[in-house]
């Protein structure tokens, strides 16, 4: 509250503010109640489900034992983390220059580029994967053009391989990274960069020692979002990977559709939940850290 606010406040307004402080959160009750009933309780219910096993003599934590001792499932969990990690790194490497360009070199508000960045987020995942299926097909446009350019001498078989999965994932996730980095880069004082250049630092050095450190928080928040979204995605793996990249969400999907082992699917869901909660916790710590600075 600024001084001006304090002065203009009438006693009545102060009283109403005090009332608002005490009853301040009453308005949130319906929403909180709704999420308790349709968000928290279903997740708790899911945890109960995860303790049920198909075997008659099964113990309560059998599903989890199976997940963490069977080398196949352990591999799937590690692969899930690895795919998310690699996608995040790819998004940083690809997204940073784009964000930098949008903030530093686009004149005006850059509304067109922002629109082009956000519009793909609004197209259905079916459309995007269908597009990649066409583009990456053995005799599709990409192979065609690369051959015409003389870069490859026979058609590429990228489809149904991990490469096509990464194409799909980065395509979906990179805009989030660009947006996160750009929103932080916007707040970096350009005079610091200019001062560094004036004092004789090269542009690369200026970037490495001034711009990059000042925009780290954008990279970190973007990475958490991308990592989190990637951990939960299965449609890209299903439609572009064709079984070449099996991650936890895809396995849940398969358990549900093919095997119908609901207890095991619920247990895998809880592992995903744990990962999501860790990401959420990190995100909150960072947001709060920023507030304190």
């Amino acid at each position: 509250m600024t001084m001006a606010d304090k002065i203009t406040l009438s006693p009545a307004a102060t009283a109403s503010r005090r009332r608002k402080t005490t009853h301040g959160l009453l308005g949130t009750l319906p929403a909180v109640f709704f999420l308790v009933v349709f968000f928290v309780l279903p997740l708790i219910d899911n945890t109960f489900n995860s303790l049920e096993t198909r075997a008659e003599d099964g113990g309560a934590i059998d599903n989890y034992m199976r997940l963490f001792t069977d080398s196949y499932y352990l591999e799937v969990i590690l692969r899930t983390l690895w795919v998310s990690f690699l996608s995040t790194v790819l998004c940083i490497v690809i997204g940073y220059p784009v964000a930098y360009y949008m903030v530093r070199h686009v004149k005006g508000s850059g509304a067109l580029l922002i629109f082009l960045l956000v519009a793909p987020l609004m197209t259905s995942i079916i459309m995007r994967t269908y597009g990649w299926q066409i583009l990456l097909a053995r005799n599709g446009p990409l192979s065609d053009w690369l051959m015409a350019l003389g870069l490859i001498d026979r058609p590429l078989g990228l489809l149904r391989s991990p490469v096509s999965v990464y194409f799909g994932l980065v395509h979906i996730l990179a805009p989030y990274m660009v947006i996160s980095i750009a929103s932080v880069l916007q707040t970096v004082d350009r005079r610091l960069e200019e001062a560094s250049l004036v004092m004789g630092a090269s542009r690369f050095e200026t970037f490495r020692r001034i711009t990059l450190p000042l925009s780290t928080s954008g990279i970190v928040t973007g990475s958490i979002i991308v990592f989190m979204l990637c951990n939960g995605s299965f449609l890209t793996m299903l439609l572009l990977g064709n079984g070449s990249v099996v991650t936890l969400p895809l396995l849940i999907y398969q358990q549900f559709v093919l095997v119908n082992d609901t207890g095991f699917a619920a247990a895998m869901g809880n592992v995903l939940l744990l990962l999501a909660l860790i990401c959420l916790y990190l995100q909150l710590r960072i947001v709060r850290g920023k507030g304190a600075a």
Partner: protein
Amino acid sequence: MPAILSNRKRPDTGLMVLRIFVAAFFIFLLAPILIVVLYSVSDAAYTVWPIQDLSLRWYERMIEYRPFLTSLGFSFKVAIWAAALSILIGVPAALALARSRSPLAEAVTTFLLAPLSMPMILLGVALLYYFSWMGLGVSQTGVILSHTVVSLPYIVRTVAAVYMNAGKGQEESAAILGANRVQVFVRVTLPMIRAGILAGGIFAMLISLDNLPISFFFAGPDTNTLPVVMLAYQQNQFDPAIAAISTTQMVIAIAMLLVVQRLTGLHHIIGQQR
């Protein structure tokens, strides 16, 4: 500033490389979408490259194939219901959170936005079994309530951001000039946040229309949303009818997105991703 001046005079190779990189990025971003649009007007019976002739036959097929249109109708029904429910419970929450000084406010905000951070597939599985246990199971009500869980955060976030930006000067002036609380709300607060409610509502609808990971689990004869039907079609048939329906859906989404941009700007919704 000699260093900068001399930098500007030299032909800037660094900037050139950056420009090419950014152009390549946007081509990468748009290519898979544009190619689908292109195939939607092709004449080929399946996706062969290069395209020979153009025709609108896949749009005809799209209209003739009943599941596309009926599921599109149902998708809209779900989206509108989910957005309306989210507005009903989300707007009071956003208003309270934007002005609250309670130490709990931060925790409540986190809680209301938490569904955004959850893996959708987990929500889908969990909600399906929960609703089955309640006796709702695979029902239209189940789909609508599930979508509301993920729509609600967008309303809360957008309306709270708009309300916070508006400041409280006008409301206080009205109160000082003698307006009672109802009058302040109807004549001052509501007009201030109307654009935010509309933009958040449309965005919530977009999220719902596009949702597949939750809707998938509620698939049934009268609970199929458009993305669910599209997924089934894509897995079983290979003709470009899927391109036609995808393009149609995209045109609807972009029109709605343009409305959002005119109402509040996109940054309120996406800029503060957290």
